[in-house]
């Protein structure tokens, strides 16, 4: 038998206690080991609820969830060993008195030996650009700094499956690039589900899931999504500015990745080409 998928859901539904409307209904998809899958859609679409069901924080109302073949509610230990989750609001994750303890927290729970733990904590803190912050108290950090601490805690754990709920929402451009590079470095080695409102972060993803009104409305390649104006509009998605410029100029929307790419493309197409220089 082939290995079970990293993540699989079938006809998954959930309603919060006391709410008439389900937050999630009939969601089904599979993510194979080593895939990098984006999740997008409007606020209230059900993205965070889906992640909470995957790591067992919430129990499915109906339908099934399997993480490497295990049910998060009946086999929580199997699932917790494999899954690391980054919450949408970093305030919710930080628990320890100092930054370094916070990053080490998950490792202590897993019983990792001290020496190895120290090395992993140091590596993770450096990876998110927080060297020098080890003895700072988390509550004195700015929002973006807290988000980096939370991410370092997750990286130190080295889980097989990373569930990231808007991991860059509070980061500046440089911080965002660093985190995305780091995630790129984990590709193939880890299974990643990455929720974001920034489509430019997902242009290289293996697939993108679009959630709206609690339903999975599309499971597509990035190129399909960015070249489908109807699918974008129906789900209140907006192309990143560079791609909007390109498509406004009648150039192929999926091409330019950097402003320099776009500038070259414009020069190439412009009838003024010969005048300049």
């Amino acid at each position, binding site marked *: 038998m082939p290995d079970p998928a990293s993540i699989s859901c079938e006809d998954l539904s959930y309603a919060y206690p006391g709410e008439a409307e389900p937050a999630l209904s009939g969601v089904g998809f599979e993510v194979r080991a080593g895939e990098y899958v984006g999740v997008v859609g409007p*606020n209230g679409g059900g993205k965070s609820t889906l992640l909470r069901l995957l790591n067992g924080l919430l129990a499915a109302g109906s339908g099934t969830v399997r993480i490497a073949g295990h049910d998060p509610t009946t086999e929580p230990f199997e699932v917790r060993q494999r899954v690391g989750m980054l919450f949408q*609001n970093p305030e919710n994750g930080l628990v320890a008195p100092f930054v370094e303890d916070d990053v080490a927290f998950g490792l202590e729970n897993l019983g990792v030996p001290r020496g190895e733990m120290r090395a992993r904590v140091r590596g993770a803190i450096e990876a998110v650009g927080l060297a020098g912050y080890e003895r700072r108290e988390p509550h004195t*950090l700015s929002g973006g*700094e807290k988000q980096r601490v939370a991410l370092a805690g997750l990286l130190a754990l080295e889980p097989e499956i990373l569930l990231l709920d808007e991991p860059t929402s509070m980061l500046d451009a440089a911080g965002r690039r660093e985190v995305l590079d780091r995630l790129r470095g984990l590709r193939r080695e880890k299974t990643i589900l990455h929720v974001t409102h920034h489509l430019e972060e997902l242009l290289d993803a293996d697939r993108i899931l679009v959630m709206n009104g609690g339903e999975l409305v599309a499971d597509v390649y990035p190129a399909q999504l960015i070249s489908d104006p109807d699918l974008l509009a129906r789900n209140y998605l907006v192309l*990143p500015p560079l791609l909007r*410029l390109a498509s406004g100029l009648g150039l192929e929307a999926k091409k330019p990745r950097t402003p320099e790419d776009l500038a070259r493309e414009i020069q190439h197409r412009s009838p003024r080409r010969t005048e300049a220089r």
Partner: protein
Amino acid sequence: MRLELRHIRHVYSPGTPFQVEALRGVSLSVGPGEVLGIIGGTGSGKSTLVQHMNLLLEPAGGKVLVDAVDATTLKKSELRRRVGLVFQFPEAALFAPTVWEDVAFAPRRLGLEEAEIGDRVRESLALVGADHLKDRSPFALSGGEQRRVAIAGVLAMGPEVLVLDEPTSGLDPASRQDLLRLIRTLRDTGTSVVLVSHDTDEIAEVADRICILEKGEVRAIGSPSEVFYANPDFAPATVSTVAALNETGWDIGHPVRFRETLRALAGLMEG
């Protein structure tokens, strides 16, 4: 209102090993009907700075002036009403059983009459497009809805200056655009707006002036066009694209906003 900050300094945990000099002499101002955009990297001091605008934090040095009057001479409650501050993640402070009650809280504390309170709550909820949520519990709303309700709570005080600290982080693109529209509406009715963001593409679309903070100091302040073309590492995609073209000898000016940039670039394609 004209709000002015002069040489503001701030030090966290002074005299301890964890001392942080978060602001090192920052001066700037915002006038009626103007949107001042403040950008800067994580930890550059943006949140610290905006909390000085209504003296929620006291400066270690420098002055805050409200229409040329030293803000320390005003009653705290008056200052906080006139300078409305929306924190980063304001939804964390929602507390009342219904959205209506939450938004009514501040005007009620101002001692207004019930009819006036009702008007203000209705108006603020309408401005943020949340009138339909008035009877809901703020805790059972999505993140984007909660953000709007929290902003309505500050608008209900009728501030002359509205200060927003990263109001769009975590919002979907449609909600972001709604919020930018709201900022333009307020500006057009004479409110002064301070908008903090790390998203330069977004701030480029609404700001009349831009201030870049770096390590607690003002690195640049001026018109969006001046500031972005002189500081490429903070430039929005529009400016970076035009700058790359200008560099190769194509002079197409210094557009910033999406529409004017698209128009300038489209001109090139037509020859």
